[in-house]
């Protein structure tokens, strides 16, 4: 249905385009000198017909169901709904919706059936109305554009203005996305801090995200102090960096200074491949291979290793970060001016000395930027830890034990839950806000460092 609607818009716009272009051409052929090319007159018709119709359909779709359901709910018999609170009403709404979709369970009351029937009818009416209105817009747009065709009409300027507006809108979408993230996170977090004091969240040492099932339950009241979750995230991040930084930097040094072109040509794609592997694959690798291997290694050495030790998640995350750090180091080393390298070599330094004493120090700012971005990525990485790290928040810095992370908690708190009316699900948004803020700060610093460093040698 919707597909047909968009098809109609597309065809009508195309028709309008060709029709008006044809008219403009006829005008040119009959000796008039038009200000704008015929194609722009055609494009103007599209701007006036297809574009508003498209926007109208989108707006309609956003509001249609809401309006219809408001009408339905308003029409329900008052004696049935008077005693109900918001939750009960939403239950009834869901039931009517599923009856309308043809899924009838048991024998619903007649007034519910009636409501469902009128819901179906209203939807059909709305669909028809939408079609009619869209056709009207399309026809009006093409006709108005047709009436405007004249030698003096500046169709090109109009079309270019619309195009510019579209481009500005698209560029602003980036800002809109950020605003959307901030707004939605803050909105839900505020609701969370209504229920849990913000100080308790920021400084509490216990993280037990539960909600009491009964009001008088003693043990059910949860605790929402995020410190253990934060510490767990940091433990895994540190493990990841301990793996990734040396391997990444040393392989970049080798590739940059010592590798023959053939080795370079083989190693670079391998690293790119490592970077292109989705994180869920790394996560499965962690539980399939790394965690069992670590456990049996621990048994041989006589050390108790938890089944989902931070070492497994962190180590695999480190593997994931190797290409990231190595490519940043490679870029930073390559950006050091040749004159520095040549000068050092001319003074008799070996290649290794040139690298460790001249090139590497000069590249450090760029490398630090890369490492900061890697930290931000490690903190925000989700799938590896969801699969390989623990769920219980223990306050420990021992990487052999099982710890949990911010992202793990966000995912486990929200999976399968869509009602955000209790501290348990809302806590996920508070954690998300923290995650967003921390990574934002890290990213801004890192991007600033990298940018400044590039300007240094440009």
């Amino acid at each position: 249905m919707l597909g047909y609607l968009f098809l109609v818009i597309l065809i009508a716009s195309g028709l309008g385009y060709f029709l008006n272009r044809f008219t403009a051409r006829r005008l040119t052929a009959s000796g008039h000198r038009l200000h704008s090319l015929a194609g722009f007159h055609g494009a103007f018709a599209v701007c006036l017909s297809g574009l508003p119709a498209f926007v109208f359909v989108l707006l309609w779709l956003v509001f249609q169901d809401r309006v219809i359901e408001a009408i339905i709910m308003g029409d329900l018999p008052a004696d049935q709904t008077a005693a109900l609170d918001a939750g009960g009403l939403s239950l009834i709404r869901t039931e009517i919706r599923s009856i309308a979709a043809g899924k009838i369970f048991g024998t619903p009351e007649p007034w519910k059936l009636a409501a469902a029937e009128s819901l179906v009818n209203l939807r059909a009416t709305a669909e028809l109305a939408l079609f009619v209105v869209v056709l009207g817009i399309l026809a009006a747009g093409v006709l108005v554009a047709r009436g405007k065709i004249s030698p003096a009409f500046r169709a090109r300027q109009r079309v270019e203005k619309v195009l510019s507006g579209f481009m500005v809108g698209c560029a602003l979408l980036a800002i809109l996305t950020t605003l959307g993230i901030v707004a939605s996170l803050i909105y839900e977090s505020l609701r969370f801090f209504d229920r849990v004091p913000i100080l308790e969240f920021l400084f509490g040492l216990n993280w037990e995200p539960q909600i009491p099932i009964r009001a008088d339950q003693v043990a059910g009241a949860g605790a929402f102090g995020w410190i253990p979750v934060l510490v767990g995230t940091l433990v895994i991040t540190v493990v990841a960096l301990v793996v990734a930084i040396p391997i990444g930097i040393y392989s970049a040094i080798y590739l940059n200074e010592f590798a023959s072109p053939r080795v370079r040509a083989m190693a670079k794609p391998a690293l790119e491949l490592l970077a292109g592997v989705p994180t869920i694959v790394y996560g499965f690798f962690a539980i399939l291979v790394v965690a069992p291997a670590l456990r049996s290694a621990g048994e041989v050495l006589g050390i108790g290793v938890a089944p989902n030790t931070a070492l497994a998640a962190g180590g695999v995350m480190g593997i994931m970060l190797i290409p990231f750090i190595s490519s940043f180091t490679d870029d930073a080393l390559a950006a050091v001016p040749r004159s520095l390298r040549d000068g050092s070599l001319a003074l008799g330094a070996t290649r290794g000395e040139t690298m460790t004493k001249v090139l590497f120090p000069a590249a450090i700012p760029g490398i630090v930027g890369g490492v900061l971005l890697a930290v931000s990525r490690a903190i925000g990485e989700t799938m590896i830890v969801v699969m390989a790290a623990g769920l219980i928040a223990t306050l420990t810095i021992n990487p052999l034990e099982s710890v949990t992370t911010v992202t793990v908690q966000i995912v486990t708190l929200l999976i399968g839950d869509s009602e955000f009316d209790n501290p348990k699900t809302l806590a996920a948004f508070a954690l998300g806000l923290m995650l967003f803020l921390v990574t934002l700060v890290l990213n801004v610093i890192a991007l600033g460092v990298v940018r400044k460093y590039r300007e240094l040698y440009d």
Partner: protein
Amino acid sequence: MTETAMNQTGATRAIDWADPALVQRVARRHRKDRMLRVAGLVALLTACLMLAILMASLLWSGHSAFTQTHVTLDFEVAAGKVNADKPGKGNYRGIVAEALKTRFPEVTSRRDQKALVGILSNGAQYILRDAVVANPDLIGTTVTLAVPVSDPYDQLAKGQIDVDTPEENRRLDDREIAWFHKLEAAGSVSRPLNLALLVNADSRFPELAGLSGALWGSFYALLVCFVISFPVGIAAGIYLEEFAPKNRWTDLIEVNINNLAAVPSVVFGLLALVAFIGWFGMPRSAPLVGGMTLSLMTLPTIIIATRIAVKAVPPSIRDAALGLGASKHQVVMGHVLPLAVPGILTGTIIGLARALGETAPLLLIGMNAFITQAPDGIMDSSTALPTQIFIWADSPERGFVARTSAAICVLLAFLVVMNGFAVYLRKRFERRW
């Protein structure tokens, strides 16, 4: 005078390269050099080794899921058990059980007969039913059909059950293994390619579970993602590169885009959950919402690719077009953009490949539901390839381990094809000005 002084210093600093202390020092410096070199090589090899282990372990654990053990049996579709008018209704379960009982007449106790039926997959009756529905003439005849065996027997056939372990620790006891060996000896067991893995949708039974729902879900989500992010990304990129004035606003947009590229993916999932599903009332688990979320994450990639490709078009082309009287828009639309398209396409495909592997935001919007049907459109509930991998990785049945690895192999194959296509585009259309 200065010249003599220099000569003098040169003379006094004459170096005796044969001096053992110096020889030692040079040797030490060269040793350090070699050590750095070796350390670099070791690091690089470690990285490559990790990649090799990753790939090898996935292939090793996944290869068995590309075949599925089948048993060929004679099913007697008696007219009394199937309704000839409605061939979909019938006691197919009984027919399947009967087929096994006739094959093993020596099994008489009720308990054993019940265990006997466990050889075949629960889906055997539906396969038989579909065959009869497709061809109602089969009613009243004996149908010879290869049907999948259940997961434990599949493992047994693939040698993944160690017969030497004590019976109580095994998933199959001696009696069951003997049954299976009898079938094998009779030549009824075959192991064809596991087409169900690609054709079926998800199922609780590993031997029936397939990826078709996930593949369609991912396809629809990527389609939505492409339809939104491709035009918007190009428009934004062109605006920033060609039209935008240099001021605080455009600076802000730039910083924003760079930052969005580094925001954790799970945060996009939170945004989608609150804004798309909560505020706009869009359906949960739908590829539409998934695709919209992914498009927000792909946008920065496409914008950056567009800017690089547009920047690479030499100014002489712009100047020539402007000199001939084209407007700024005509220059961009008619000349700069067409020349930049290969670069933009390359960036877009790479962005889509990344979106294909993205899991966390899809989990949050509920694309990890258990759905046994492939979606019919962008509004249907469905899973996606990475979330299906997540579901299977979480499933307790042994058979899902191999299937998870196999699904990952399928995902990686798609990624390799997409990235390969991007590399091909770059090589084929790359232009040096």
